[in-house]
């Protein structure tokens, strides 16, 4: 900004001939923008309801953290810093841009609060801001053209590359910065020539460089450049304003709203229809998302807000193994659909089914609901709810792969996906050898306990996973927990049933289990199955609080009830694999690690992808039955990551992770070089046993009613 000048009238006088033009552009630009936004709102109005107007303070907090604070951006360092700079620049430049636009029609306009010293500081800051934004644009263009980060690539089946459009927008923003800087630079150069004390103090800023370059240009030339720069700025500004809603740059406008309305209750699933209670569900004609209008307005807003950054797909395990799913393109395709079927002029909406046109069934079934996409997205886009809703639609239409129909039918008849008999659900606890170590109570009407160990299906029925059940029971017994299991009364927790879209079957399983849980009188629930943990915590109502066994073990360690023998083989290097439903979905990262670190002499390394960047093992529940088209198994990639980290033992805390890891070890040819062990199994193995006398007293014949299976 030019120092020491009281009035800028003489320079801005150059704009006077254009006043009518500028006013017209304002009018045209704003009218167009308003019309465009109104048309863009149409699908939101036609979509389903979505209550997002509660808890304004929490929502405002999200805006501060994720929008203003750009919290997720640094997860990709270079792009993150780049974007933070650009975003900060935009925020800072907002008032300046506004002032500049007004000046063309009202020359004396000064932003309230920006007069005097603060105004000058602001001007200086924004000089540099414009420069930084400009440089960022150059950097971004070079990055796109020369370095071509892999996540921006568009696989052939999704159409043409987006590079041209991206560069077009980057260039436009650069032009905007140039226009602004040229505007300031020419003014400073003119004022300097007129002998006015004009020191553009912001050395090496873009305006400063223009001023220096134009220092000896003629006044008329400067006048034309001044006028031209202004016009360029205004036209570019309004062009961008009206162009942004036609592509990914719409996120500039929608991001604030998208983050404000973001989901607050993480790890919960959207109900079939907001505002319709479970009892009323029978009256709903159609379940799930079949046509575009079945999405909620927030989901449509998500589609508008996707910035095509590709971070979601870059972290999506299904995408990494060549399944036909790319979360980024779920959003982009839906957005393109919205643009095509809700055009600026003409008839809107066409009510055609989405699956079979823009989506394929395999694309929708391929998702393991691991949540890596949601963990990564800087705009807090929600993916799992959409996938689940699309699956609900497919289920409703009967369009379900045969491989899933069998386990679903078995879940309906037998309460487990294997079709095994209910009465055998507690057999894992009743082997002769195990009963000598630990007696597990079955909580029926006559027999109660403080805690319920919810075993769930795979641990109950799978020969290999039963050892996790026994290890868990042994640990609970060791710390003196008064616990029991539901036995034949337990049915599958239904976590995947719900996430695969079979809401009715899930409700039946949930209601049955909730009744059994409440009847058994337990005050708390413990489980070693993160999928059951997730369902019991978020999808079940009115059941006692639930914990994962890792939390129980850690508490035992801290209280001294559990002590560990040192790790036997000093050559083993352990690594902990974060199960999706324990880590990402429920934030339990530290407890399992603390348990491992409590084992003396246990050497542990971290894989590059850990904590909320953990790489899904392949999925659990119904996903074990689905036959995907893929280039490789997710588990194989994961064990290779473990090997790369230098580990030869993978510790998991989920029976499904265990299935996938052990399978992958064989398929990857690492048998003999790598093993997998469950956290509970390891803890049980390393646990210092209490003295035999105390054991015998506690393990005396239990009451007949409490014998498991009774």
């Amino acid at each position: 900004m030019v120092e020491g000048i009281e009035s800028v009238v003489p320079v801005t006088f150059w704009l006077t001939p254009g006043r009518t033009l500028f006013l017209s552009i304002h009018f045209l630009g704003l009218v167009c923008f308003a019309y465009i936004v109104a048309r863009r709102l149409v699908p939101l109005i036609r979509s389903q309801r979505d209550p997002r107007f509660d808890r304004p303070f929490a929502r405002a907090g999200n805006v501060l953290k994720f929008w203003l604070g750009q919290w997720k951006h640094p997860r990709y360092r270079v792009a993150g810093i780049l974007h933070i700079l650009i975003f900060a620049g935009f925020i800072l430049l907002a008032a300046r841009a506004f002032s500049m636009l007004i000046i063309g029609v009202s020359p004396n306009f000064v932003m309230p609060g920006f007069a005097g010293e603060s105004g000058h500081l602001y001007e200086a800051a924004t000089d540099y801001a414009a420069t930084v934004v400009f440089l960022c644009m150059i950097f971004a263009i070079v990055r796109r053209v020369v370095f071509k980060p892999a996540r921006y690539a568009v696989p052939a089946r999704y159409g043409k590359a987006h590079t041209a459009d991206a560069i077009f927008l980057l260039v436009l923003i650069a032009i905007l910065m140039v226009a602004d800087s040229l505007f300031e630079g020419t003014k400073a150069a003119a004022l300097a020539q007129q002998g006015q004390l004009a020191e553009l103090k912001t050395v090496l800023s873009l305006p400063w460089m223009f001023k220096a370059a134009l220092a000896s240009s003629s006044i008329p030339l400067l006048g034309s450049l001044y006028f031209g720069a202004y016009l360029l700025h205004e036209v570019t500004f309004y062009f961008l304003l009206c162009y942004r809603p036609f592509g990914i740059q719409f996120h500039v406008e929608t991001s604030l709203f998208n983050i404000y309305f973001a989901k607050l209750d993480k790890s919960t699933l959207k109900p079939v229809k907001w505002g319709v209670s479970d009892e009323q569900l029978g009256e709903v004609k159609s379940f799930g998302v079949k046509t575009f209008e079945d999405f909620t307005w927030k989901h449509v807003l998500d589609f508008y807000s996707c910035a095509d950054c590709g971070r979601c797909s870059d972290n999506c395990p299904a995408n990494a193994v060549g399944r036909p799913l790319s979360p980024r393109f779920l959003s982009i395709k839906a957005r393109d659909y919205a643009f095509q079927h809700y055009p600026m002029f003409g008839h809107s909406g066409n009510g055609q089914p989405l699956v079979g046109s823009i989506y394929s069934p395999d694309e929708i079934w391929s998702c393991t609901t691991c949540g890596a996409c949601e963990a990564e997205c800087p705009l807090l886009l929600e993916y799992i709810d959409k996938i689940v809703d699309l699956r609900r639609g497919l289920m409703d239409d009967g369009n379900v792969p045969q491989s899933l129909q069998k386990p679903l039918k078995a879940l309906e008849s037998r309460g487990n996906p294997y079709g095994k008999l209910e009465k055998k659900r507690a057999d894992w606890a009743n082997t002769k050898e195990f009963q000598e170590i630990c007696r597990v109570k079955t909580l029926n009407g006559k027999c109660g306990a403080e805690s319920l160990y919810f075993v769930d299906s795979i641990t109950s029925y799978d020969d290999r996973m039963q050892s996790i059940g026994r290890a868990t029971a042994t640990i609970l017994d060791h710390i003196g927990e008064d616990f029991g299991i539901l036995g034949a009364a337990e049915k599958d927790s239904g976590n995947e049933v719900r996430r695969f879209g079979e809401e009715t079957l899930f409700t039946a399983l949930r209601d049955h289990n909730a009744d059994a849980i409440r009847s058994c009188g337990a005050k708390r629930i413990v489980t070693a199955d993160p999928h059951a943990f997730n369902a019991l915590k978020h999808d079940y109502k009115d059941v006692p609080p639930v914990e994962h066994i890792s939390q129980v073990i850690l508490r035992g360690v801290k209280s001294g009830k559990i002590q560990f023998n040192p790790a036997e083989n000093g050559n083993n290097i352990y690594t902990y694999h974060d199960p999706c439903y324990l880590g990402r979905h429920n934030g339990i990262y530290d407890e399992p690690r603390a348990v491992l670190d409590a084992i003396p002499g246990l050497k542990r390394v971290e894989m590059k992808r850990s904590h909320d960047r953990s790489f899904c093992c392949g999925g659990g529940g119904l996903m074990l039955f689905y036959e995907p088209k893929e280039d490789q198994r997710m588990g194989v990639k994961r064990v290779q990551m473990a090997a790369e980290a230098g580990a030869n033992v993978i510790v998991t805390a989920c029976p499904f992770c265990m299935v996938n890891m052990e399978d992958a070890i064989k398929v990857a040819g690492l048998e003999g070089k790598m093993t997998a062990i469950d956290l509970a199994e390891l803890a049980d193995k390393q646990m210092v046993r209490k003295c035999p006398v105390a054991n015998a007293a506690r393990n005396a014949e239990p009451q007949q009613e409490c014998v498991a299976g009774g």
Partner: protein
Amino acid sequence: MARIFAYIVHRGGVPDDSAGELAAAAKKIDATASATAIVTGQGSDLDNVCSTLRSSFCEVWKIANDALAHPNAELIRKALVKVLPPGSIVLVAHEHFGIDLAPGLSIKLNAAYCSDVLGMDALDGNDLKVVRQEFGGQVSSHVHCDISSGAVLTIRPGAFRPQQNAALTGTIVDKSGEIGSLSAGRRYLQTIVAEAGDVDITKHAILVSIGRGIQEKDNVRIAQDLADVLDAAVSCSRPVVDAKWLEKSRQVGSSGKTVKPKVYLACGISGSFQHLAGIKGNPFIVAINKNPKAPIFQVADVGIVDDILEFLPELTSKVRELRGVPAK
């Protein structure tokens, strides 16, 4: 005693293996009676078949007709109804043709019908007691048939062992003139042969079959080496296809191919019901598996508890030695 007939299917002038099995079944029903074979078709192929069947049956009824060039059960049923005496017992192999022909035949002959028979007691007056399975083979049952007006029975392939080939003793009776003209509401158009892939495992007499125990794709060559010295083909169970170590055309099982080899080496295969369902014709089954409790050992003829990754290469060397084939 009722007259026993066996309908024999044939291909390329050669009777199906079931011919001997049906003859044996007939002997079980009535050790004194001699069964009559019935074949339909035309041309020299049919004549060759009749000729071969003389060693298993005392009489061979030949029904030649151009309309029967391709075995159309609808037409054949009409022909049989014309030539079969009342109260006959008719045996047919329980496979795709038998399933098509036999139930309707029993109605037209007003005879009792029992399918997929595994065994039987000797006929006792009009009471025939047979053994069948139900529920996918999980339980067996004894079934009583009242054959006062005859019976049509389909016999499970491999359930009856054919007797030794005797010298040619049967006579050929030409019944072609008795059937009159034939037409039916179903007309044969063509046969579409299944894609065989690079190797057609159904055509090999010896199969080296691998399962999960092979552990990784690179180990498949261990099985191939053995197959090479045995002039065999490599086949597999489903997990191997799922892991993409071999293509689907190599899969033996209820969702893969049905094979009828003479020798079947099950290497690292657990022996699931679905896999075993693809093995027909009662081959000599050798099972090699690390797990002594694998179900395959129940159905195998010979079992070895060992690691196939070490066992097979040594077996390959041994076979090479015996055959005088120089090591590679």
